[in-house]
């Protein structure tokens, strides 16, 4: 059990470090000392942080393996692009920031509703069956968006399914995806979204509902016996995760001039899962660190040229083997004073 105090300290440190980094980066951008490659990656990094934290809510806090998280990101991205394009072309809303906020919130809501609809059947299943159904939903979402054509005409939207004959300015063009998107995402918006996500997730986990969610994860039967409505709390975690992933998607989508529906495939879901597992399941700061590190890493490995994904794969396997090596685990336990105390406490409880 972590004490209230240690949790408070961890959370405060997380917020403080993030704010410090944001201020530092803003100053660097203003003084033009930021490396170009890093600058272009700031918004995607924010989006992946939100994705990792929201998936950690589902996988780590609620304990349900989801392999379709990129599906929600996809819904969010294309909803965001449609909303932004609609506001711009239909209502001549030139203010980019306002459009971005409306698009992100709208994308989150649509994705959250989709999460609720998918959650009803999915959360009836357990374990690996649940995982495969989330994978299936992710693929279905990708496939459906691949057949969707949306255009804006006057103040209305024209939607075609499997039918590219829609009048007006194309926003979403089936397998071509969204082209000529006005990029309005900014680093500040990304940072605010990350903070918003953290506030929601950290407050949720420290609340009564959060404790109920974790109780349902740790022991379903015991939790049910104490009167916790399992489905309800798992649903809260799943829908919140989908909502946040949708917002991340909108941020990501509005940062790209061109975005195809196949971008959000099973591989992206897996990538986010890698962030969560490498950062430590259930650890929010861990998810943030690994999302940042693993987004930058493939770029930093560019000097290896075509070997870089090979190096990434080897690194992934080696890290997983080392982290789970009993020898390394005990060594880490000795080096880390917090872990040790934790272990002693456990032994006290056991005896």
């Amino acid at each position, binding site marked *: 059990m972590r004490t209230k105090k240690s949790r408070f300290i961890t959370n405060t440190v997380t917020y403080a470090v993030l704010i410090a980094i944001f201020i530092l980066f803003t100053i660097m951008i203003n003084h033009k000392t930021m490396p170009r490659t890093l600058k272009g990656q700031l918004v995607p990094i924010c989006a992946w942080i939100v994705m990792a934290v929201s998936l950690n809510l589902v996988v780590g806090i609620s304990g349900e393996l989801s392999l379709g998280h990129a599906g929600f990101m996809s819904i969010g991205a294309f909803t965001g692009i449609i909303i932004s394009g609609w506001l711009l072309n239909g209502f001549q809303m030139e203010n980019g920031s306002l459009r971005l906020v409306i698009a992100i919130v709208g994308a989150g809501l649509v994705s959250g509703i989709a999460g609720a609809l998918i959650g009803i059947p999915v959360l009836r299943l357990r374990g690996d069956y649940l995982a*495969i159904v989330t994978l*299936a939903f992710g*693929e*279905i979402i990708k*496939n459906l968006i691949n*057949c969707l054509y949306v255009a804006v005409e006057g103040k209305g939207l024209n939607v075609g399914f499997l039918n590219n004959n829609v009048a007006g300015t194309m926003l979403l063009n089936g397998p071509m995806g969204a082209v000529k998107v006005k990029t309005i995402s900014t680093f500040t918006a990304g940072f605010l979204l990350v903070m918003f996500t953290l506030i929601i997730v950290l407050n949720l986990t420290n609340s009564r509902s959060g404790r109920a969610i974790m109780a349902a994860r740790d022991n379903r039967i015991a939790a049910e016996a104490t009167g916790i409505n399992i489905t309800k709390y798992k649903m809260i975690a799943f829908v919140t995760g989908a909502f946040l992933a949708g917002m991340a998607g909108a941020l990501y989508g509005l940062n790209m001039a061109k975005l195809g529906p196949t971008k959000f495939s099973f591989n992206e879901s897996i990538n986010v899962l890698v962030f969560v597992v490498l950062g430590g399941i259930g650890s929010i700061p861990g998810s943030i660190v690994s999302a940042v590190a693993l987004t930058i890493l493939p770029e930093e490995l560019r000097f290896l040229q075509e070997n870089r994904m090979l190096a990434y794969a080897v690194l*992934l396997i080696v890290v997983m*083997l080392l982290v789970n090596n009993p020898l390394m685990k005990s060594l880490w336990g000795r080096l880390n004073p917090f872990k040790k105390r934790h272990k002693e406490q456990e032994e006290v409880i056991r005896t």
Partner: protein
Amino acid sequence: MVFLSNLVNGISLGSIYAIIALGYTMVYGIAKMLNFAHGDVIMVGAYLIFCATQYWGIPVLPALLIAMISCTLLGMTIEKLAYSPLRKATSLAVLITAIGVSYLLQNLAQLIWTPNPKIFPQLIPVDSIKLFNGQLVIKGVTLVTIVINVIIMIVLTIFISRTKLGKAMRCVSEDRGAAELMGISVNRTISLTFAIGSALAAIAGLLLCSSYPKLVPTTGSVPGIKAFTAAVFGGIGSIPGAMLGGVLLGIIEILGIAYISTELSDAIVFAVLIIVLLVRPSGLLGKAAREKV
């Protein structure tokens, strides 16, 4: 007639899925892990057969044998190096490692064979047969695929139910601890499972690329996911389930393409999977796990 021809094509595609699904389901049943690298072993097998027949001029049957042996060794090496140190780790850690292995194989293939697609030659020298006065034409490849699938099914069923090793595999899958107490070497059994699964993957590679001749380093991943779906569909861990799931999935996919829409075929396959799992939460032939309090 068109329906019949679609049905035969569906069974043929389904047979390929079934052979791949066997690899997933056996490993899951025994090692309780989702081996996401299985699809990439298929790709390696296909490339080996391609090289053996095209560059080294080896006939198809010995080439298949070489590929099967290499894939078996590859599967066992992967298991020894990457999975067996994680026997006691969480299932998620194993899953991520499997994904790492999958990336590794894809990127190695990309380095060795370049990302340019290779056109897989027609290696199965069986003529098409015509039925009903030429109204129904069945391709040789289709027929061979179905026949090979039936043979594998029969041999594997006999192996699992009659031989000592098969019995050991069933024991380990039921209760690993008890099996160890009975003197069964769990590590060897798991190794054997990977060996069989990988050898089947090489066969699947040949059949897959004979029907869909474009060979790239990511060839294995989509059929891999579909076959994994098929394994879950039939009830993961169950061998007849993998067969049934694979064949049904293939039929649904081909009929979906023929009668509903080409673009939506994947969505249809996955929608059927979801509906089946909602009605039977542990798959068609899976055993429902009873909860003990």
